[in-house]
């Protein structure tokens, strides 16, 4: 029971007055939270930098996200613009640079509630596709926010399939200009962020036509709004696409172009150029553009997606030790809901997942950096693997994080549905990630295509890219575990995941081959196998994540206490996956029914073990209260007081509504005489 006479409970995270139910959880931690935080940050220095940045950001009222949940779409947009402009000034003042370590901590402290995220993509695309002169002309303007850009690729009727885009850019030799047009409604640019209200310029993708011949998609820079009064340029129809499930602070926009003429120099020409006489020249490989896409994918995972799951876990876990409900033993007080096995089963595997994904960062970056170096030297050999790996990893991480945040929301009972819990905001943000930067099903199929090729390489004895070498190792055919404790051996479960990935891929490839051999056309056969191929790609990604988790645990050998708890999380992540997909492992008797019972026993035992460290494990993520922005998840655990305090600030309690005077009052009048 929370008593009335508590003071200062809704002030700040600095308050040391902590709910005793949370306090006791912290006292029994089996490891140093501070140490684990440092490991998660990639070193104690990083933790220090991060906290210094957070302190600066949170001390400025100009960055406050208080009352965010009460704001309209218009207000949220304006606040995001204000914060972004202010952040720019603050960074300048503090001497933080665009490519410095502080910027990602700013983003984290502000929960990503900033505008001009696509402005960065605009710049990156010029850097990747522009000539040196183009870079010299546009980038300084963009850096200083003298122009604000957007990246206009997706159209109303076209997303995934770029060749299907319909916007046209026709070169006119007589004027030396391109004329850009939106030939029909489905060709309108639709969704680009920062386009609806903010952008002055756009990188627009269009089909290039010279002398009646189509040369495919190219990128053009054009001005869409006046720099003087911000009004749309003549021939430009531009606006906001309307309310969404979230991202209300972003002005996703539409753009229709009617005979817009731009000079020849405005086509981004690092890799292809149109000469004054209309000759089309191709130069080098534009494959490097894939790298921009891959980088964007990696970036959103670690800046946007994974931290959001970490936050959701923090909120739900803290709330679950403050909330008490029903009794576990007669005579006892009501139990903390985290003591219920069903609640543990909802939250703790997610906590393990959060750690599993966080640890993927190092793995993916290593791949990326290696690929980047090679590609810069015009060696594109590793590109297919890098592309396939990041596609599948993006898909599995966004899928699991989205589902996980929703589980967290529902695990908080009724209060999870309150916007003040922060969870609806986190969930709806994640929900978009399954679609943007590559629709997940499409991405899994790209990974599958790569894997099918790898498998063919295995069969023909050719070299296999590192992430798929396991496909060539020999399969024992049967799981070797004899007791439930055996299932806590990483070798045992890694092997099980490997077996599953290999088998599912093998089955899909065999089926595909069979269909082709029986006369089906390649594309038709592929379509008929896609359900299986998606399953195979998922199993592959699942294996990669498990394997990397195991490797991470091994690297912690100098941190005995931390290694122990992280090993538990690794075990839980792996066994939860088997427990939830028993059929994949039972099939053809790889794991026996008795062994499944062992998995279940070990899995349930782990829940009880990790339960004891659940709060320290989320504390180690070290989110500030301001960044969580949740009445349920604050560090001090004064859930109910804060919920009440925040609700009273709701505009619905302040604004005068006409509903009473107009519609209710006439009804109630006649009761006066009767009561």
């Amino acid at each position, binding site marked *: 029971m929370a008593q*009335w006479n508590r003071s200062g409970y809704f002030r700040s995270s600095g308050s040391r007055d902590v709910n005793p139910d949370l306090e006791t959880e912290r006292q029994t931690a089996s490891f140093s939270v501070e140490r684990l935080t440092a490991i998660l940050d990639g070193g104690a220095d990083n933790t220090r930098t991060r906290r210094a940045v957070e302190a600066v950001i949170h001390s400025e009222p100009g960055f406050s996200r208080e009352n965010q949940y009460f704001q309209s779409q218009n207000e949220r947009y304006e606040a995001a613009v204000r914060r972004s402009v202010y952040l720019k000034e603050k960074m300048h003042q503090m001497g933080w640079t665009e490519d410095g370590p502080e910027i990602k901590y700013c983003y984290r402290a502000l929960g990503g509630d900033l505008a001009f995220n696509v402005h960065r993509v605009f710049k990156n695309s010029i850097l990747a596709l522009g000539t040196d002169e183009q870079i010299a002309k546009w980038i300084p303007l963009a850096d200083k926010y003298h122009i604000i850009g957007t990246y206009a690729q997706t159209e109303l009727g076209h997303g995934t399939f770029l060749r299907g885009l319909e916007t046209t850019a026709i070169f006119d030799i007589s004027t030396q200009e391109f004329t850009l047009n939106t030939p029909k409604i489905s060709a309108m640019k639709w969704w680009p962020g920062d386009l609806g209200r903010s952008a002055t310029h756009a990188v627009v993708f269009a089909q290039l036509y010279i002398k009646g011949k189509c040369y495919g998609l190219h990128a053009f820079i054009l001005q869409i709004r006046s720099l003087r009064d911000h009004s749309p340029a003549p021939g430009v129809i531009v606006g906001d696409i309307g309310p969404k499930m979230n991202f209300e602070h972003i002005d996703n926009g539409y753009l229709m172009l009617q005979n817009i003429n731009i000079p020849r120099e405005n086509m981004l020409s690092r890799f292809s150029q149109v000469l004054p006489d209309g000759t089309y020249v191709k130069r080098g490989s534009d494959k490097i553009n894939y790298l921009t896409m891959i980088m964007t994918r990696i970036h959103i995972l670690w800046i946007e997606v994974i931290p959001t799951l970490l936050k959701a876990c923090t909120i739900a876990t803290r709330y679950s030790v403050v909330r008490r409900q029903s009794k576990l033993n007669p005579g006892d007080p009501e139990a903390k809901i985290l003591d219920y096995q069903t609640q543990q089963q909802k939250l703790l595997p997610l906590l393990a997942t959060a750690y599993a994904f966080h640890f993927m960062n190092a793995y993916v970056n290593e791949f990326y950096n290696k690929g980047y170096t090679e590609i810069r030297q015009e060696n594109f050999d590793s590109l297919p693997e890098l592309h396939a790996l990041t596609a599948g990893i993006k898909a599995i991480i966004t899928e699991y994080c989205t589902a996980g945040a929703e589980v967290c929301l529902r695990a908080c009972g009724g209060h999870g549905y309150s916007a003040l819990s922060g969870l609806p905001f986190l969930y709806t943000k994640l929900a978009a990630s399954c679609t943007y930067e590559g629709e997940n099903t499409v991405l899994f199929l790209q990974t599958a295509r790569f894997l099918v090729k790898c498998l063919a390489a295995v069969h023909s004895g050719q070299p296999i890219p590192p992430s798929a070498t396991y496909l060539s190792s020999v399969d024992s055919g049967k799981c070797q575990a004899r007791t439930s404790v055996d299932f806590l051996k990483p070798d045992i479960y890694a092997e099980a995941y490997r077996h599953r990935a290999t088998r599912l891929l093998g089955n899909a490839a065999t089926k595909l081959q069979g269909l082709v051999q029986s006369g089906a056309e390649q594309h038709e056969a592929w379509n008929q196998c896609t359900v299986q191929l998606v399953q195979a790609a998922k199993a592959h990604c699942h294996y990669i994540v498990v394997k990397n988790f195991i490797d991470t645990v091994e690297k912690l050998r100098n941190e005995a206490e931390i290694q122990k708890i992280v090993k538990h999380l690794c075990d839980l992540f792996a066994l939860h996956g088997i427990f939830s997909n028993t059929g994949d492992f039972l099939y053809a008797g790889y794991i026996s029914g008795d062994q499944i019972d062992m998995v279940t026993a070990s899995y349930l035992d782990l829940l009880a073990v990790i339960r004891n460290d659940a709060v320290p494990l989320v504390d180690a993520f070290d989110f500030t209260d301001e960044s969580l922005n949740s009445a349920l998840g604050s560090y001090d655990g004064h859930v109910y007081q804060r919920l009440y305090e925040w609700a009273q600030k709701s505009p619905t309690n302040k604004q005068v*509504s006409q509903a009473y005077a107009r519609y209710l009052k006439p009804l109630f009048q006649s009761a006066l005489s009767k009561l």
Partner: protein
Amino acid sequence: MNEDLRRERDSASFNPELLTHILDGGAERTQRRKEIEALVLNDPDFQHEDLNFLSRSQRYEEAIRKSALMVVKLRKYGIADPDEIYWFKRTCLGSFVEPLGLHFSMFTNTLQNQCTVGQQDKWLPLTYGLQIIGTYAQTEMGHGTHLRGLETTATYDPATQEFILNSPTVTSIKWWPGGLGKTSNHAIVLAQLYTQGQCKGLHAFIVPIRQLGTHEPLPGITVGDIGPKFGYDEMDNGYLKMDNFRIPRENMLMKYAKIEPDGTYVKPVSDKLTYGTMVFIRSIIVGDSARSLSKACTIAIRYSSVRHQSELKPGDPEPQILDYQTQQYKLFPLLATAYAFHFVGAYMKMTYYRITGDINEGDLSELPELHALTAGLKAFTSWIANAGIEECRMACGGHGYSRCSGLPDIYVTFTPCCTYEGENTVMMLQTARFLIKSYTQVCSGQLVSGMVSYLNDLSGQHIQPQQVAARPTAVHINDPASLVEAYKLRASRFVEVAAKNLQAELNRRKSREDAWNRTSVDLVRASEAHCHYVVVKLFTTQLSEINDAAVHAVMNNLCLLYALYGISKHTGDFLQAGILTDAQVTQVYQRVKELLAAIRPNAVALVDAFDFHDNCLASVLGRYDGNIYENMFEWAKKSPLNKTEVHEAFHKHLKPKQAKL
């Protein structure tokens, strides 16, 4: 009409109208439903701006306007049948909720069920005319599921013959009741009754909270809106804190328990009727699961026939995305599920009416079982529908994320029912309690009846894991009846495993609650398997009642898909119990894909048969005519951010930057 959709409709192998009649329960009912819907759709008074563009306060006001209007119109048209009122209201509300919802349901029902005749005479006429508006205040900030834990107190003062109501702690503040924040002037408050120094447990009191005439909160009452939520924007879910607030003795609802003027407490006679209300509400939620999922499927399937993307065959035009196997695999099992849940909802409602009949003469002995079993079905269907709506949204790519798709609204309006009227995990455990009780009964030699009667077979044929040779040939994957048997075996096995594990835990420790908690993952799994069996069984039963051959053929495919897809998602359960062999599992996977292809030509007709009017769907992507893109543009132009060509944020924040150019 969009050419793609026209082609889809022309090529359907059955008449969707006939299927609509089955869903409505007869052609006459379809006709009457359409008449009622037309009353709303053709009435200019019910026209309103797109709610997506309004603020919370504006949406609230619009909802109140409509609620008041609905009362007037229903009376004008003389609509009194509960189903007809329901049709009328849902046509008015679309995917939204009304702040007066609890007034019409819980407030009025509680007065009807728990008031003495004298109390009814006083309060009911006022509620019918909306002269008072009430809500039902049970849940507190710190207490939901566990009712005994509620902290609000009502202390009887014999000197003045009044109850003194108090919210002693922060956690005791009433929190969440719909319509409490701004609308209601009365509330039924559940509080711990104290008299003569003793606590007599929870009782219901009718409490005035706002002044008639001014609508200001009464002295001693703190009341307000709990702030923004995940959806439910137009609902003023509220909080209520009471400080020494006094109400007369007559305001305790005294049909069952009573307080004499001197403070003597008179105990209630037990009643089973509250079970009836809960069963009814749960059947509504199951129906809602079906309906919300049907809407989402309608939108996603129509959009998938209009949207073209990528290429299947090099050189061909971009195909409809519904031609991709992965898209079919996302949507068709959900379509089958929507139909399955529809039949479950209809069954529950029918059973409820059969059992309660004339409530005073009906044989209520089946109610406790029905109550226990419907708890699980409420959870089972709402969880799956909830996930399904999101899958439909994601199947619409980026545009599903826009509120113009209607899918975000369907989702946020539906999703709280995983928690309200009984948190789903708690519901599953209630069903498990009944399953374990039935299992124990069978073990002690007594037979059980109804949906759990399969447990009777357990004593004879204990299901042994890994006995692959014993049974597999019995399952025919193309025969729905045989699949019902497979699901039955799976449920039996999980009930047995849970019961045995529970017993093992009990042997190890003293506390029954502790043992129960340590088995709860198994118990929930048993309940889920049981519910899954019930759904497959009811869907299969429904097939025999379809006379039209063409409709029967397509429904048979849907039923098979529902059953086989469920197996394919839980192959481990069937393999481990030896219900299916590896070879059969492979066949199941293959058959599922064949069924996707078989259902594909009828997909649009199957969602057309749900017969949602465009106004009800409120979705640009799901429009009947399929003219999506031009209408998305029209919709977007109305966005509040587009009210001015240059947004004020430019003048405030950006212009100072750009002036430096």
